[in-house]
C-alpha cells in the first residue's frame, strides 16, 4: 500500500538513469508491441466485419453460392476498394510507394512526405515564434491581454481550412507562392496552442515568488528570465506538441488546395477522388508517422531541457 503510493511519480517525469539496454527494451518496447499486436488483431477482425457486405455482393456477382468461411475471410482482406483495408494491404502499398520506387519519383511517398515536412517545419517555426511573441505581449501589456486575447481565440474559430483556397488565391496576387501559402496556413493553426499555453505558463509562477523578485527589485526582463520562462517550460512543451501536430495538419489541408506541388495532401485528395481506399490509408499512415516524428523531436528536446533546467523532479 505505502510503497505503491510512493510510486506515484510518473516514470516520464523522473530523470532516467542510464540503465542497461535490456531495461530500455522492456521499458518501452514490450508494452508498445503488446498494444500494437492487440490493435492489429482488432483491426483484422474489424476488416472482416466492415468488408463482409461487399464480399457477399462480389461472391453473388461471381456466382459463388456458398464460399467457405476461409475463402470469405481471405476475400475481405484482399479487396481492391475495401471499406477498411487490412493492415497488410496498407503495408504492401507503403512498401510499393516507399521502398520500391526512387525517393525522388512522384510515385514515392518519401518524396511527398518531404514536400509536406518542408512546409510544416517552416510553418511551425513561424507559428511558434508568433505564438511565443504574442504570449509575451499578452502577459506584459494589460491592454493587449484584454483586447487581443479574445481575438486570438476568435481567430481559431475561423475555419481556416475553408479559407485555404482563398488565402492561396490572395497570396498569389501579391506574388507569394510556392512554400509560403502552405506554411502560412500551418502557422495559423500552430501559433494558437503555443500562444495560449505560454500565456498560461508565464502566469503560472506563485505570487510569493513574484513578490520575492519584487523585493530584489528585479526588472521585468529579469522576472521573465529567472522566473516566468522556467516556470512556463512544462506548458510550452505540452502546447508545442499540439502545435507541431497542428501545423502538419494545416500543411496537408493546404496541399489539398494547392495540389500542384504534390505532398501528402495531394495524395489524399487523389486517393479519395479515385476511391483508392488503400492509397488513402497509406498516405494517412505516412502522415501520422511524420506527425509522431515531429512530436517525438519535441519530446526529446523537452527531456533534455527539463533535465538541464532541473525542472524534472
Amino acid at each position, binding site marked *: 500500500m505505502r510503497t505503491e503510493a510512493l510510486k506515484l511519480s510518473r516514470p516520464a517525469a523522473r530523470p532516467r538513469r542510464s540503465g542497461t539496454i535490456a531495461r530500455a527494451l522492456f521499458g518501452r518496447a514490450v508494452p508498445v508491441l503488446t498494444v500494437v499486436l492487440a490493435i492489429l488483431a482488432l483491426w483484422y477482425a474489424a476488416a472482416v466485419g466492415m468488408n463482409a457486405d461487399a464480399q457477399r455482393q462480389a461472391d453473388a456477382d461471381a456466382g459463388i453460392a456458398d464460399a467457405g468461411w476461409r475463402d470469405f475471410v481471405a476475400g475481405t482482406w484482399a479487396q481492391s476498394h475495401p471499406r477498411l483495408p487490412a493492415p497488410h494491404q496498407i503495408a504492401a502499398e507503403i512498401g510499393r510507394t516507399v521502398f520500391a520506387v526512387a525517393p525522388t519519383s512522384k510515385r514515392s511517398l518519401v518524396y*511527398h512526405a518531404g514536400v509536406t515536412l518542408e512546409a510544416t517545419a517552416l510553418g511551425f517555426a513561424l507559428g511558434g515564434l508568433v505564438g511565443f511573441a504574442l504570449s509575451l505581449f499578452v502577459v506584459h501589456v494589460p491592454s493587449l491581454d484584454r483586447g487581443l486575447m479574445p481575438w486570438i481565440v476568435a481567430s481559431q474559430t475561423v475555419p481556416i481550412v475553408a479559407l485555404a483556397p482563398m488565402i492561396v488565391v490572395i497570396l498569389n496576387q501579391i506574388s507569394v507562392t510556392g512554400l509560403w501559402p502552405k506554411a502560412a496556413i500551418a502557422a495559423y493553426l500552430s501559433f494558437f496552442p503555443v500562444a495560449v499555453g505560454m500565456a498560461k505558463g508565464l502566469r503560472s509562477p506563485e505570487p510569493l515568488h513574484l513578490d520575492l523578485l519584487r523585493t530584489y527589485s528585479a526588472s521585468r526582463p529579469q522576472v521573465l528570465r529567472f522566473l516566468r520562462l522556467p516556470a512556463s517550460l512544462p506548458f510550452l512543451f505540452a502546447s508545442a506538441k499540439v502545435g507541431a501536430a497542428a501545423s502538419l495538419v494545416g500543411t496537408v489541408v493546404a496541399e489539398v*488546395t494547392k*495540389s*500542384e506541388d504534390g505532398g501528402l495532401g495531394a495524395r489524399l485528395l487523389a486517393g479519395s477522388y479515385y*476511391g483508392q481506399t488503400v492509397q488513402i490509408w497509406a498516405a494517412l499512415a505516412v502522415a501520422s508517422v511524420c506527425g509522431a516524428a515531429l512530436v517525438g523531436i519535441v519530446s526529446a528536446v523537452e527531456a533534455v531541457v527539463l533535465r538541464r533546467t532541473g525542472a524534472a523532479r
Partner: protein
Amino acid sequence: MAFGLAAMAAALAAGGAARAADPVTLQLKWVADAQFAGYFVAKDKGFYKDAGLDVTIKPGGPDVNPEQVLAGGGADVVVDWMPSALATREKGSPVVNIAQPFKRSGLELTCRADSGVKTPADFPGHTLGVWFAGNEYPFLARMAKLKISTNGPPGVTVLKQGFNVDPLLQKQAACISTMTYNEYWQLIEAGMKPAQLVVFNYTDEGENTLEDGLYALEPKLKDPAFTDRMARFVKASMQGWDYAQAHPDEAVKIVLDNDTSGAQTEEHQKHMMDDVNKLTKGSDGALDPAAYAQTVKVLLSSGSDPVITKEPQGAWTHAVTDKAGIKAP
C-alpha cells in the same frame, strides 16, 4: 532562394538567344488528368513554345474555384463549365468564353439498377448525390424541368457527394453524378457491371450544357496584345487536342508525367482519354452559338431558384478564335 536563382539561371541559359516567350497561366478546373490532356500535350510537345508562349498549367481541386482565381489575377485563362461561368458573370465578375474545345457534355446521373430507379419519374423518394461548388447548376435545372422538389421527401433528397463514387458503392445514394469519361469508369473499375447501372445522360434529355470552355476576363481582352496572346494559346491548345485524338496512348503518358500526386493509374487514364476524345471530336475550338443558346435556355428554365435570372449579354466572343484563324461554325 539559391535554388530558385539557380533554376532561373538555368532557364535563362536554356532560353538562350530565343526571344522572351509571353507568359500565360492556365488554371484547370480539376486535378491533372486526361480531361485536360490537350493542354498538357501542347506544353509537352512544344506547341506552346512554338507559338512564342511560356505556359504555366495550374491544376485545380475540389475547392479551387477557377472564376475566383481568374478574378484574383492568379491566372490569365481558366477551364470552366458554362453554367458556373454565366452565374458568376451575373454576379458581376466579367468572365467571357473565348473558346470551346469540348463540343459535347459528359455529365450524367448514374443509378444502381437495384435501387428501383428506371426512369426520371422514379427519382422522387430517392437520395441523389450531386457535386456542388458550381457543378450543381445542370442538376438543379433538370430537376426544375421535371418539377421535382429537391428538399427531401416527397421529392428527392440531395446529398453533396464528395468527389468519388463511394456513395453508390456503399448504397448511400440511389444515384450519383458522374462524367462519362471519369466516374462511370471508376464504378466499372470498382467491380460494378454495366448491367447493374442505369445511366441518365443529360444530352439525351436535351438538358446538356457546355463544359470545359476557356474563359478570360473581359477588360483584359480590350488589350490587343492580350487577345493576340490568347489567340496563339487557343490555337496551340487545339493542336494539343488534335494530337491527343490521334495519339491517345502517348497523350496518356504525358498526362501521367504531369500528375504531381503520382496517384493516377494508366488503366483509368486510358478509359478517360478515349471518352474525352469523344467529347472534343470535331471541335475546332470556336464556340457554337447554337450550343450556347441551348445552355442558356436550360439555365433560364430552372424554376423557382434560377441559376441565371436573365439572358446574359456578351458572355462569349469569337474575337480570339477569329484572330487564331479558326472559322466560327
